[in-house]
């Protein structure tokens, strides 16, 4: 089974600070990590390979330093990795990014399955995975918490807000995963030694046959109008006292607010 996994290098939000004046991320000095959901996607690909055989190819579009993110996946056990990097890609929105990644996948992998994280923790759009499926005209299943592959189809359990939904999808397809799907493995020392020595193949827009009117800022229809922090929610109220007091006070408050 040939699996392609798309990953993104993102700032480690555990370390991120916000500039209070502009409300934007301060990126200087913040370590970069593999987007956590993408790590789950890599892990899932490796597990599927362990079960069904085949090959796992990791693709990222990003600046040259994204090589570090790719090395991380080699240490975990990925077979092949590619960096898609070109000045022409600067300023890409989700439309242009999913187009570029779709071009790369088409060029590089005889894919049976494409895995992505459900979203990147920096932009939180959750659009790139579905976008790739559209560009490639194949089915997509989002928010996967369980994937079982059986020949030319997969049974996927989706983690929705109130219920889990099980769907069957013909392959090839794009599946985006949530973090509950698995616990990414700790890399082995052997994997890391391999990663350190690995030469990372870097491909340009031309190398992946991308139409340059659809890539980068030029190819991006999205315009950011304003970035702002959402208003802070009011704090909750803690009711103290004996059980009877708490119950009657709570029911009274709920009545006042016409909740019951």
């Amino acid at each position: 089974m040939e699996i392609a996994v798309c990953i993104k290098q993102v700032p480690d939000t555990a370390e991120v600070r916000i500039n209070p004046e502009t409300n934007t991320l301060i990126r200087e000095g913040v370590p970069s990590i593999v987007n956590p959901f993408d790590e789950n996607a890599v892990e899932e690909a490796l597990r599927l390979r362990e079960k069904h055989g085949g090959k796992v190819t990791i693709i990222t579009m990003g600046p040259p330093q994204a090589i570090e993110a790719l090395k991380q996946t080699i240490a975990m056990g990925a077979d092949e990795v590619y960096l898609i990097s070109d000045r022409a890609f600067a300023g890409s929105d989700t439309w242009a990014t999913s187009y570029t990644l779709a071009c790369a996948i088409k060029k590089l992998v005889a894919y049976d399955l494409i895995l992505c994280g459900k979203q990147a923790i920096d932009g939180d759009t959750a659009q790139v995975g579905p976008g790739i499926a559209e560009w490639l005209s194949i089915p997509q299943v989002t928010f996967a918490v369980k994937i079982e592959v059986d020949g030319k189809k997969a049974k996927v359990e989706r983690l929705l807000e109130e219920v889990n939904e099980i769907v069957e999808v013909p392959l090839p397809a794009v599946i985006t995963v949530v973090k509950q799907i698995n616990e990414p493995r700790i890399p082995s020392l052997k994997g890391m030694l391999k990663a350190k020595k690995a030469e990372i193949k870097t491909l340009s827009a031309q190398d992946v046959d991308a139409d340059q009117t659809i890539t980068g800022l030029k190819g991006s229809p999205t315009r950011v109008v304003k970035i702002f922090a959402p208003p802070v929610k009011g704090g909750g109220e803690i009711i103290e006292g004996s059980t009877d007091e708490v119950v009657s006070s709570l029911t009274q408050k709920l009545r006042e607010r016409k909740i019951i």
Partner: protein
Amino acid sequence: MLKKTDPAVIQSYLEDSSNLSGGFADGLFLPENEKEIIEITKECSSKAIPLTTSGGTTGTTGGCIPFGGWILGTEKLNKIIDINQKSKTAIVQPAVTLDALDIELKKLNLLYPPDPTEATAFIGGTAATNASGSRSFKFGATRNWIKRIKVIFSTGETQNIERGKLLASKQIHNNLSYKTPNIKTSAGYYYNDNSDLIDLFIGSEGTLGIITEIEVNLINRFHDTFDIIAFFKTEKDAVDFAEQIKTSDILTLEFFDHNSLGLLRPAYPQIPENSGAAVYFEAEALELDQLAQMLEKHNVKLEESWLGTNDKQKEELRKFRHAMPEHINEEFKKHNTIKYASDIAVPDDKFREMLNYYNSQLTSHNSQLFWVKFGHIGQNHLHVNLVPKTQNDIPIAKETILKFVKKAVSLGGTCSAEHGIGKIKHEYLQEMFGLKGISEMVKIKKHFDPSRILNQGNIFPRELLK
């Protein structure tokens, strides 16, 4: 000043992580400044009321648990007074937790190296017990990082004790014959011919005075470290490797025996089968290729060694290390027994002999006793925990630990490398220093605490204070 006598409030000051039961007290003081502490000590001294100081109550030996008298809760003295980036020092009040200090230091890219696992411990408490952590392999115990302390004595007098100013031997006019061994230890008052007065107070378990201010040294945080857990076929392979890696630039060096891995396996099914032991270490600047060769020489499969390079992975590996005491404590709970565990360290050249002794004793008896050996192999300091599964096993567990202590003492080791003596290890301290040594410690106590009210029952039995 806040004084409380409500039994429900007092109750929460009668426990720490030792499971020692039976503590009681008439009341609780919660002073907000040094002036109030001076008033309390004077009052208790004049009325001969025992006074027990309480920190974060995370201690493992019942040190903060009172058996009568009043409790002095330090919790309101929780200010970070100053962090000086230039001199890399910080001045804190005693109830600042390790966690709270770290949050502030992180912003300045600074680090206070002592890392006794439990981050809710107060810095005052860690100074009073001379706590260690896994990084003590590189950085030593708490005492190495304390520059100055301010102490209030039971007389109400205050003294600033600064490192490098006063020798302990010059202060105590009795000639003392006992000496603290030159290994990782927190057993009894730290004393030798050239020891600094400040070191007598660090690790004195609150028996000499109340620490009200602490000045510590800091270093720059480091970023480019990596953590490895390597699994070995045999215990011997692991110990051989540990001995070899010890001379490299590493920060921590920890060991898990075969039974430890068995205990962790249900939670960590990825632990390779047939592992006889594991070693966990944190390194700063090691060449991975060289390291890999060294591991392979000791029969380690590189594909079975876990490597953490980013914060998340390192955190995972640290969790694995922390899961060890948690799991064994669960075992004690499950079998409804108090904790039977050693805290022994021995000199470098005696470690193998001690390890052989552990193994021969642990396998010599015919019982259901379950044991694990794990911990700070870098400082020749393993925690051997014995879990009795039947009533018959209890005396065997007790006797085995006492035998370990005797053996360690005969090798120049210590009965308590990091947790202190508190109220539960008097017998072991006596094995280590003899009656003469203990009586000398009693003299030190009486010298600094003439009314003998402070932390009675810590280090030696309170009867000796009469």
